[in-house]
């Protein structure tokens, strides 16, 4: 069952090979620039044949990305990127299919397609640019906007509870979820490579800053001064340690996760949880994805579970059906069953 479909190449590509000739029209300082740079840095590491990469997007600032990458690209309609990408991959499993969407695109108008893409586990690499606002329509609240936030369509504060994309992915039985920040491009690149290597639907949430309509929405965790204390970069097989002094860690106290300080109250490194991205049960991964507030926001690959992908299952079924098919061509089908000569 374990098959890989995207042809590899020995060609040594560089960032330049994937940079398109189109002028990048995002606002200066927009987090999207950094995400694009991370993607352009990830592609050469994958050795996928350049002609076989296809970028699919929906509508929104982030969805302009296919124009800026020199691959095949499809700039779709609002919310439907996952559905379009599903068809691209089904028609030709040899394509490496990347989906780029914003928070509104993926979780409001396109929420249905996202959860079903995740549920199917088709081999798609999905990046969600989460700036917690509708930027292209100039500042309305999105499904991830913080509760109570004042925006153009919530002048008295939102009363909508926001989605947490990671929890949504786990709830839909997702096999890969990772989170990163626009301002840590090296981590983003690493995660993109890991996502591409994963057989199945990979979802990457990038906490991205819209400096025009929602500036500093992630500042509470991304500011250099607080970042190390407010975030934790998870690594498979390693203890969950964070903090400027690398002396804080996460412990499961039997009911929930808690942040502890190594050396205080008798806590040692042995009390700290070791990250296992491969556990099939979503319990701990869900808790990790949920963290925030008193706990650091989890970055890195939170979940990466092996499960036959829709692509593998589909192609396997196609092969089996072809091998056992009693018809060699459509003529055989037309003449099958009860027929008679006049």
């Amino acid at each position, binding site marked *: 069952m374990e098959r890989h479909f995207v042809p590899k190449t020995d060609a040594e590509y560089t960032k330049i090979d994937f940079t398109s000739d189109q002028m990048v029209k995002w606002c200066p300082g927009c987090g999207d620039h950094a995400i694009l740079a991370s993607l352009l840095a990830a592609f050469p590491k994958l050795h996928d044949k350049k002609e076989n990469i296809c970028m699919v997007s929906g509508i929104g600032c982030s969805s302009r990305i296919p124009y800026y990458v020199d691959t095949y690209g499809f700039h779709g309609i609002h919310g439907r990127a996952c559905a379009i990408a599903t068809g691209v991959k089904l028609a030709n499993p040899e394509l490496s299919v990347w989906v780029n969407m914003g928070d509104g695109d993926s979780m409001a108008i396109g929420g249905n397609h996202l959860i079903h893409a995740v549920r199917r586990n088709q081999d798609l690499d999905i990046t969600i640019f989460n700036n917690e606002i509708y930027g292209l329509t100039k500042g309305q609240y999105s499904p991830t906007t913080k509760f109570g936030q004042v925006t153009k369509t919530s002048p008295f504060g939102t009363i909508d509870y926001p989605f947490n994309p990671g929890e949504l992915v786990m709830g839909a039985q997702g096999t890969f979820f990772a989170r990163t920040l626009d301002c840590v491009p090296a981590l983003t690149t690493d995660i993109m490579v890991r996502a591409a290597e994963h057989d199945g639907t990979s979802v990457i949430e990038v906490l991205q800053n819209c400096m025009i309509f929602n500036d500093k929405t992630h500042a509470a965790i991304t500011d250099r001064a607080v970042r190390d204390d407010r975030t934790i970069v998870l690594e498979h097989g390693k203890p969950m340690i964070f903090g400027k002094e690398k002396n804080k860690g996460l412990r499961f106290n039997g009911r929930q996760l808690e942040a502890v300080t190594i050396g205080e109250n008798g806590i040692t490194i042995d009390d700290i949880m070791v990250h296992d991205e491969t556990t099939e049960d979503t319990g701990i991964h869900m808790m990790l994805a949920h963290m925030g507030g008193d706990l650091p926001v989890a970055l890195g690959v939170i979940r990466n579970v092996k499960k036959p992908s829709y692509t593998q299952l589909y192609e396997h079924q196609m092969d089996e059906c072809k091998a056992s098919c009693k018809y060699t061509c459509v003529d055989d*089908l037309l003449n099958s069953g009860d027929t008679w000569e006049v």
Partner: protein
Amino acid sequence: MSNNQIVNRDDLVVRFAGDSGDGMQLSGTLFSDASALTGNDIATFPDYPAEIRAPHNTIAGVSGYQVHVGSHIYSSGDKCDILVAMNPASFKSQLKWAKKGATVIVDADTFTTEAMEKAGYKENPFTEEFEHAYTIVHAPITSFTQRIGQELGADKKTADKSRNMFALGMIFFLTNKTLEKTNAYLERKFAKKPDVVKLNKAVLSEGYEYAEKLELIHSKIVEVAQAQMPKGRYRNITGNVATAWGLLAASERSGRRLFLGSYPITPATDVMVELSKHKGLGARVFQAEDEIAGICSAIGASYAGALACTSTSGPGLSLKSEALGLAVMTELPLVVVDVQRGGPSTGLPTKTEQSDLNQALYGRNGEAPLIVVAASSSANCFYWAYTAAKLALEHMTPVILLTDGYLGNGSQLFRIPKVADLPSITPRLAKPNDPDYRPFRRDPETFAREWALPGMEGLRHRVGGLEKCPDGPLSTDPENHALMVYNRQEKVNRVANYIPEQEVKGNPDADLLVVGWGGTAGALTLAVEELNNEGKKVAYTHFNYICPLPKNTGDILRKYKKIVVCELNNGQFAGYLRTQYPECPMHQYNKVMGLPFEVGELKAEFERLLEM
């Protein structure tokens, strides 16, 4: 039986009616199959409720299946010569479909006081007056079936399931047919359940013998004339299966993988169900999470090089509107099959109508032209699905194929073609590493762009819903937009150069021209033929190419003093023709009842117009 008991007829209409679970669709199918195999032409019309199993013995749960057999069959027939009613509710609701004097077979065992009350009868419907008007057969179907069940050791529930075979056996006797084909079918169908085969065969034969012994109906045995059909190999086929097979044939002939992205919807689901069986022939079927994902996945598949299709019915087409605009804008080949049903909204899911025409023609934002074609018989759904695929692939545009519930669920004889004899299909594929490739470079004749597939070297490009310039990049330039709008329209207009001219049938020298389109051809053909045979003069033209129209359409319309446009909606095609040919006054004959036309009503209307 002796020959003098037999009446020869050109055609015969039989209607099977019962509770939704009574197996009436199967009885009808088996009768039509057996008739077809013994040389009759056939057409069938399943008339079933939206509810799967509505409460037992209620009018809401009545399911009907009409079979028209004969020498030359255009439609499933207006009213029936033989009605089978398995319970009081079906008797009550279906009697209106029986001709005066028809043979009506009822399951007498089911006419209990309780069941009659449930059907809304306050007193016994079999009055003396009624018994004079019809040949009524009070057959003890349930009790006979249960007795056989008992003899064979089947439980009551299993025995009751074979009641339909009793009725079918009676019909076989009345139509002078043998049980051989149906017995063979039962052996095949229930190969793993020998008890079921035995029971059904025994009940079938019991029904046959019961009818044979019944002197009352001896005089009514009908020998239906054999069909005179062109030589060839034939089979029975429903419109939805024919549509699926047409797409498979187009995929094979064009060399493009077949992709169908769809969501279940009545009455279109069977297109997807059928294609799902044929992964072995390469059909890539995807049951999407909704209608929108159905078409969007198809658009993605088209971008990646498949013959991409989506199948739906009216409400689903509404949901697909935005994505259809995307397919128009990206100029990708796409076949959208709309098996129309009664609307608006959820409307009449299991009933037929032609009311999606406006939606097909105009239901998108912006200037968004596309090709619209319509099938006109269950069997020719094959050719129109094939043609839709050919047009999409050669002209690089979405195509909407309109069929309807009547065609989709109905069945007909199909003369089996050889795929190699079908018209060729040449997709407009770009050449890898073509240095001059531009996404919107057009063929000077057709205006179709080239199809460059991801995976092809040297043709990387982007498509999408935003306006582009011919070279590919985005453009909001006013002149460019005007040019691209013109190009997309002109591409569709020029399809008229590649389709055959419209034909006039009936009596071309008549004063009255009957105009039809899509699934009404059977009844219209027969009505016009009968009137001409009766010495009236009527001309008839039937449209399958809806947008663009055949080039000579105006010439035809301008020739006739009186034109009547007949359709199962409030006049959508008439309105469309008027916008293009405002100089031609047109009458309309419309029916919006969820039902097909009847020949009788059409003839009456045409005669009225002739006398005007």
